[in-house]
């Protein structure tokens, strides 16, 4: 509600309330609410929720508390795909670029998974080594993608302008149609995570224990990564690579409801949506009539919050 009210042009809360429960306010206010703010708020909620869910699943299956969608190379892959499409093909249509971003995210996730494949099966130590390999592969793929991105962006002025949006992440413009066809992707990612909840919980005890429970650990890990690629890829296509949500929200969630995936998702999704919405609202207010991109606000708030979190855990 507040998110609907705030913006370059402030609307009184009462007016929003009247719109929500009445026939709709007349004139420009109505247009602002419906066309811009509502779709923006929805996009924020979906993006935040999917990032939080992706982070939660990542941290469970890699058993790495620092895992976040960015680590899978998803963000970098999406950015590279978008930059390539703009530079080589001259695309600018948001639908095409969104699709490109999802594909890039998916390809990067697959590359990371193949490179860091934990399929060697071995004992506990090999299991941990596999996780380490996966993490390193993610960092390597990210670095490679971002190197290409930098090179292209330095070469080409127009690409650079467009790229600025993708590097930082923003709920900026015209997402209504994008949300319309991206939500099934996000929903599918979430559905996979929910269906696999018990297997993912088993896998969090290590591949050996999961197998002793009769769970096929490689298949579970693979499907969980598909889920992460859908969720993170969808969010990147919606709002660009937004950091920190996927990292912090799962931590807070575990403090609240423990490490199981189902209650975790139930808490993490609303939490992620709310966090993103709040940050977006702040970003729209502090620099009125201009805006600060959501990603920057998140980093400004999230960075210190994360440090505080580490401090608490370390003690």
């Amino acid at each position, binding site marked *: 509600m507040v998110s609907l009210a705030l913006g370059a042009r402030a609307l009184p809360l009462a007016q929003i309330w009247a719109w929500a429960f009445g026939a709709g306010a007349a004139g420009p206010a109505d247009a602002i609410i419906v066309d811009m703010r509502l779709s923006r708020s929805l996009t924020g909620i979906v993006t935040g929720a999917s990032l939080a869910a992706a982070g939660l699943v990542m941290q469970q299956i890699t058993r790495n508390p620092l895992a976040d969608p960015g680590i899978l190379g998803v963000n970098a892959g999406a950015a590279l795909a978008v930059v390539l499409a703009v530079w080589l093909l001259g695309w600018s249509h948001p639908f095409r670029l969104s699709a490109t971003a999802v594909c890039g995210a998916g390809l990067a996730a697959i590359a990371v998974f193949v490179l860091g494949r934990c399929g060697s099966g071995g004992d506990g130590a090999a299991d941990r080594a596999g996780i380490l390999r996966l993490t390193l592969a993610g960092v390597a793929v990210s670095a490679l993608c971002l190197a290409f991105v930098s090179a292209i962006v330095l070469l080409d002025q127009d690409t650079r302008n467009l790229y600025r949006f993708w590097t930082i992440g923003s709920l900026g413009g015209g997402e209504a149609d994008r949300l319309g066809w991206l939500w099934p992707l996000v929903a599918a990612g979430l559905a996979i995570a929910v269906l696999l909840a018990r297997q993912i919980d088993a896998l969090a005890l290590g591949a*050996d224990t999961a197998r002793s429970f*009769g*769970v096929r650990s490689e298949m579970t890990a693979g499907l969980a990564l598909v889920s992460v690629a859908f969720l993170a890829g969808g969010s990147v296509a919606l709002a660009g690579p937004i950091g920190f949500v996927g990292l912090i929200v799962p931590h807070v969630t575990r403090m609240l409801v423990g490490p199981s995936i189902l209650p975790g998702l139930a808490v993490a999704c609303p939490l992620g949506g709310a966090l993103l919405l709040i940050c977006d609202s702040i970003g729209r207010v502090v620099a009125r009539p201009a805006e600060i991109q959501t990603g920057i606000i998140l980093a400004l708030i999230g960075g210190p919050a994360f440090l505080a979190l580490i401090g608490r855990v370390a003690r």
Partner: protein
Amino acid sequence: MSLEARNLTLGYGGQAIIRDLSLRLPSATVTAIIGPNGCGKSTLLRGLGRLVPAETGQVLLDGTDTATLRNNAIARRLTLLPQSPIAPEGIRVGELVGRGRTPWLRPFRPPGQTDRDAVQRAMQAATVSELREARVSDLSGGQRQRVWIAMALAQDTDWLLLDEPTTFLDLRHQLDLLKLLRRLNRDHGRSIVMVLHDISLAARFADHLIAMRQGEVIAQGRPAQVITPAVLERVFGLHTSVIADPLHGSPLVLPM
């Protein structure tokens, strides 16, 4: 009722560690596998528990080839507790033990009364009932190992395979744990197979011993048959003297 390996070859990445091994483990018995480091005893255990796929040969569970059974069906009859299982950050004892019910749960249904009863029985048997609400990360090594045993017990399997369950425990906790395992065998009829390092403890607590060296079974049978200077010489390359433990009557190894 038995667990049997037939011409089993096991290895990692094409390199065979165990070649063409055949072995029959009696049920309702405490069996210990002993041998020097790297002799393949853990690999054999993991092969029997299907954590390492058979390259050739079969593992038979009560006469049925496990390759023909569904993962879930096996997990209801046999489980393996790895040497260093991983506890998720912040998990509580009750929740962790509850995860042992995984192979029994039906999709989309919450755990039922049977599951809660099994978890409670398992926690009582492993004497961790009073720790239900504690965080696993706050427990001592001995308590934590009992919690893992409780998780394996909650799985309600006839066969319980343990990979060096006494590592990282001091002598008192080693004894407590082995007594617990023997009680599970005597009172609940569970078949227990474990890899142990300490020969004298293995001789005292196991009914059946398997001595391995370089992927082969050198000797098997009752402790008194296996723990002899001749076998120990072949298995460990050690000159030893074996006497009867004055307290328990089991063979006691004195290295020279």
